């Protein structure tokens, strides 16, 4: 069996499951946020269950439009806060919060071998820990909160192998953008993606979270890594409970195996308006920008900020560019502060924000006007994603976003003198 099949079999009381089976899976963690929780709460009340199945397995995070951006957002956040309080759920208030997919692993809540469902499409991020994690809608989450179980179809698994050593400025973001550019935004529709190979073994946890995060951008249901030394080191002193490590069998059945030479993958830029619309940095041409955003559940972790700081250190952001940096959590913000990264950013002329999804989904903290262009380390560049329907978002890694902020056009870090 594949890693996905093994975890799912263990969560539905079966010895074996295969792609296409319908199962009812037990959930180890059930997640929602300030946008999706209000509907989940409404549907939960309609179900008529007096209690949630287990308050210690339900997490609510105010991150999308929080700190509250307007009265309506405040009303939705209040609805979530009240429900979380009433049922004694795990809840992070703004002072200790972060973007949901950054803090669940950081706080040791997401663990290997678990099944995690979340009313947010990027719930797949936890696959980096060898977790079967997938996004669903609010109604599904209401049912999972009440019963602790949810129906699922066991997905086929596509195996991706990244051979060789990637170049200095090529990271997890580039490997996954390259992959999506190759297979398309529905290239892994309904499937689990499994990441393997030399380049993957050498990738740090933050880079792995970035890759799992964007499995959904290929239509995937999950993006999984095998647990190794790096995973175990990450979990040490952090894991809030016991966990089980599963691994794919050597004779596991894959729907497809796709192999790449990572040494040939340059930093990638996804042009509007699809994450699959990728070009290597050397073929981007002259694209002037108005804004550069560094953050999000894709690239708002400490390694990402370090990378941006390496490029921005001692340099200045172009006066025509708004460079906005959003650490993914309060913990990351604090560590970046201690390491001196925040000072580098501010001296370079970048704005640093409290953790929030903010501009990633066009919420607040950096909305684009008609005709404006932004290079962003986020995961989606759909029409209107960051503001006006006639604005444009280009997806890239943090080093490219930092270099672009300095040069005022999309550029690789090697072009910065």
């Amino acid at each position, binding site marked *: 069996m594949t890693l996905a099949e093994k975890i799912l079999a263990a969560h539905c009381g079966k010895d074996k499951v295969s792609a296409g089976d319908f199962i009812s899976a037990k959930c180890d963690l059930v997640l929602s946020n300030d946008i999706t929780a209000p509907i989940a709460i409404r549907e939960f009340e309609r179900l008529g269950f007096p209690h949630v199945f287990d308050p210690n397995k339900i997490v609510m995070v105010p991150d999308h439009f929080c700190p509250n951006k307007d009265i309506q957002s405040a009303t939705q956040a209040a609805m979530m806060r009240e429900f979380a309080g009433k049922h004694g759920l795990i809840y992070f208030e703004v002072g200790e919060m972060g973007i949901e997919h950054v803090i669940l692993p950081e706080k040791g809540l997401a663990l290997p071998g678990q099944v995690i469902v979340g009313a947010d499409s990027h719930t797949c991020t936890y696959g980096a820990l060898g977790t079967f994690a997938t*996004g669903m809608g609010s109604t599904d989450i209401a049912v999972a909160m009440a019963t602790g179980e949810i129906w699922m179809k066991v997905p086929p698994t596509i195996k991706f192998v990244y051979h060789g050593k990637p170049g200095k400025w090529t990271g997890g973001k580039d490997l996954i953008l390259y992959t999506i550019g190759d297979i398309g935004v529905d290239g892994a529709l309904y499937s689990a993606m499994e990441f393997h190979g030399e380049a993957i073994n050498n990738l740090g946890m933050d880079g792995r979270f970035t890759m799992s995060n964007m499995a959904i951008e290929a239509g995937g249901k999950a993006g999984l890594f095998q647990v190794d030394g790096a995973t175990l080191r990450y979990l040490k002193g952090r894991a809030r409970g016991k966990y089980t490590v599963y691994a794919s069998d050597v004779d596991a059945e894959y729907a497809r195996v796709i192999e790449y030479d990572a040494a040939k993958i340059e930093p990638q830029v996804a042009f509007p308006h699809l994450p699959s619309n990728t070009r290597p940095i050397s073929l981007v041409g002259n694209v002037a920008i108005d804004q550069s955003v560094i953050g999000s559940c894709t690239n708002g972790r400490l390694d990402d900020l370090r990378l941006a700081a390496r490029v921005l250190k001692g340099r200045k952001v172009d006066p025509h560019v708004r460079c906005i940096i959003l650490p993914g959590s309060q913990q990351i913000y604090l560590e970046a502060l201690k390491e001196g990264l925040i000072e580098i950013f501010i001296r370079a002329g970048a704005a640093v924000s409290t953790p929030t999804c903010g501009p990633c989904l*066009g919420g607040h903290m950096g909305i684009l006007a008609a005709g404006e262009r932004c290079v962003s380390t986020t995961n989606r560049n759909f029409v209107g994603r960051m503001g006006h329907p006639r604005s444009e978002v280009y997806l890239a890694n943090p080093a490219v976003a930092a270099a672009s902020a300095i040069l005022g056009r999309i550029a690789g870090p090697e072009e910065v003198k």
Partner: protein
Amino acid sequence: MPHKGKIHKYGDNIDTDAIIAARYLNMHEPRELAAHCMEDIDADFVQRVKPGDIIVAESNFGCGSSREHAPSAIKASGISCVIGKSFARIFFRNAINTGLPLLESAEAVENIKQGDTVEVDLATGTITNLSSGKTFKAKPYPDFMMEIINAGGLIEHIRKKSVGAR
């Protein structure tokens, strides 16, 4: 009861930001959301759409965010069902859960144009293009999903099951 209405046709990879932009996610009432349905890619959809109308789309309709606001907005706008070549996974779940019928038929999509009048019989999955007289068959749902659809959505399905178990 068959659904009958005019066609609103879209291309590949219509994402949930296009169906309902994130700037409106500070609301969650279906009627409020419907007022902005498809706004960024089809500004006068809301003025054009009539109760019973049908959306026809190419591949991967509903990709992107998990927002259930998307099928809710489509349903509340008056659209009776969506015919597509394929649907994104989370959108598919959300539509089933909230009672927006989806029909998968590549042949139907290729043979239906913007503005055609189409009739859909959900019970049999039959799609008839009244403008051309052609008929198509949608891919049947697995039995397990039919149970949820017949119960009237996931909440009703679970309510029935948990009452049975008590």
